[in-house]
């Protein structure tokens, strides 16, 4: 599903943002990517939605190879991937419903389907009652759930989350983690980057720890431990 082979990313000469990365990510996994600030978590995720390309090595996502993907194919790869960020990236001049439907409109989805899918996805993130609100009328946690809805409305096989809880309070953090868990339970793989080690410590899920651009730990296995969220 996602494979990364012997991959380096170099932004400036002789400075490795990522070095010799080898990873295999299977369908339906839940993975935390952790490590100190500046270690390369964001860079790793950007490789996966092909926002950047490896300096050396190969990244394969959903059958697209980083070495051979054509510029024209990138939009079609992105349609299979959901991405959310610390800063939500919502359109301030559109309400919640329009922000979510935007992802379907720009890929020319028939109007009837749009309404149905958007309403269902908004319900999934528990925001049906706020469908007419604009981003500035929503809390950080709610805005992040809108961005999750926008990422999910295309039914991606994987959700990439780069510090999704970086800008929200502890209560919302818990809600968002719970939501990500639900999403994963319904079959979507989730990869979440965070430097908040305490979120991850007691987690049963696979952990990839990055330091100075290198993977120093990969637990590989997803332990099943339902108590994880209760202990937050």
């Amino acid at each position, binding site marked *: 599903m996602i494979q990364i082979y012997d991959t380096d990313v170099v932004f400036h000469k002789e400075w490795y943002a990522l070095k010799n990365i080898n990873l295999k990510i299977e369908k339906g996994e839940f993975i935390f990517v952790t490590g100190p600030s*500046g270690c390369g978590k*964001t860079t790793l995720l*950007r490789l996966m939605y092909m926002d950047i390309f490896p300096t050396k090595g190969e990244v394969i996502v959903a059958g697209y190879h980083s070495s051979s993907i054509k510029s024209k194919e990138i*939009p079609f790869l992105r349609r299979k991937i959901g991405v959310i960020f610390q800063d939500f*990236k919502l359109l301030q001049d559109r309400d919640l419903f329009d922000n979510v439907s935007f992802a379907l409109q*720009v890929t020319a989805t028939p109007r009837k389907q749009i309404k149905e899918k958007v309403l269902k996805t908004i319900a999934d993130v528990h925001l049906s009652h706020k469908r007419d609100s604009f981003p500035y009328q929503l809390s950080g946690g709610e805005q992040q759930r809108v961005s999750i809805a926008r990422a999910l409305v295309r039914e991606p096989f994987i959700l990439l989350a*780069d510090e999704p809880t970086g800008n929200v309070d502890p209560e919302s953090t818990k809600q968002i983690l719970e939501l990500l868990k639900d999403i994963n339970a319904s079959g979507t793989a989730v990869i979440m980057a965070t430097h908040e080690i305490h979120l991850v410590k007691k987690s049963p899920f696979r952990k990839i720890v990055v330091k100075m651009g290198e993977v120093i730990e990969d637990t590989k296995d997803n332990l099943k431990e339902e108590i994880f969220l209760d202990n937050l």
Partner: protein
Amino acid sequence: MFILREAFRGLSKNKLMALVTFGVMFFSLFIFGLFLISTVNLFLLIQKAEEKVGISAFLEDELSDNEIESLKRDISSLMGVQEVIFVSKSEAFEKFREDLGEDSDLLEALETNPLPASFDIKLYESFKDPKNLESISRKVDAMPGVEEIKYGEEWVKILDRVVKVLVGIDLILGVIISFSSIFVVANTIKLTVFARRKQIEIMELVGATHRFIISPFLVEGVIEGILAGGFASGLLFGIYNIFAARLGDFIQVTRELFIIVVVFGTLLGYIGSHISVKKFLRAPIGTELPKGK
């Protein structure tokens, strides 16, 4: 349709920027229209000047009608000759008298008509250059019965050079005006696109194709271009109507001018938006700098 809706949304949400873009386009197109009017008039002038270019062949006095007829046929068969008009001695005298006007009384003193009969030889456009004029003149001059040839060698040479220089300047000016219009308009539109770069970023993120991302901007640009072209040529017509009477038959503004300005406006909007949006495509999405918390 989404693209149209987005285009109108863009225009109405950013009225000030839309107005600025319109203004810049309007100004560019007005200049472009002025240039077109000048070009049309320049070519009109050149055409008028070149109409006068021709060869006069003065004939010996004692030619019979038959000889004149056959001479006319010979000249007509030369390459490049469009028309040969016979001017008899008396016609020449009449014309001379008209040219003199008030002083024509002086002619009464003359007992005989001193003016020779002649042929006015008109040439095809493409033969009105110094080289062809000279070679045709030489051939006519060599024919029996032709006494003298006149075609204003010096004047033709100067006219030829002036025309070449003017047309050259006109062309260069046209290219400069076109490209600087596109440059200025593209840079103005870039501000509009910059204001919406976040929207472009999100479109890239959720998998919109580049064509889809560009389209609303193209529609906006084309709408503004058509409007600006319409208003610019409207103003040109207004100015023309005010000055038309005074300038007489010099200025020629046609309906084609209107169409050309609007078409150029459309192109301006299209190319301008295309250039500006292209600059914002494929911008990195996930680059917030590390927070260091």
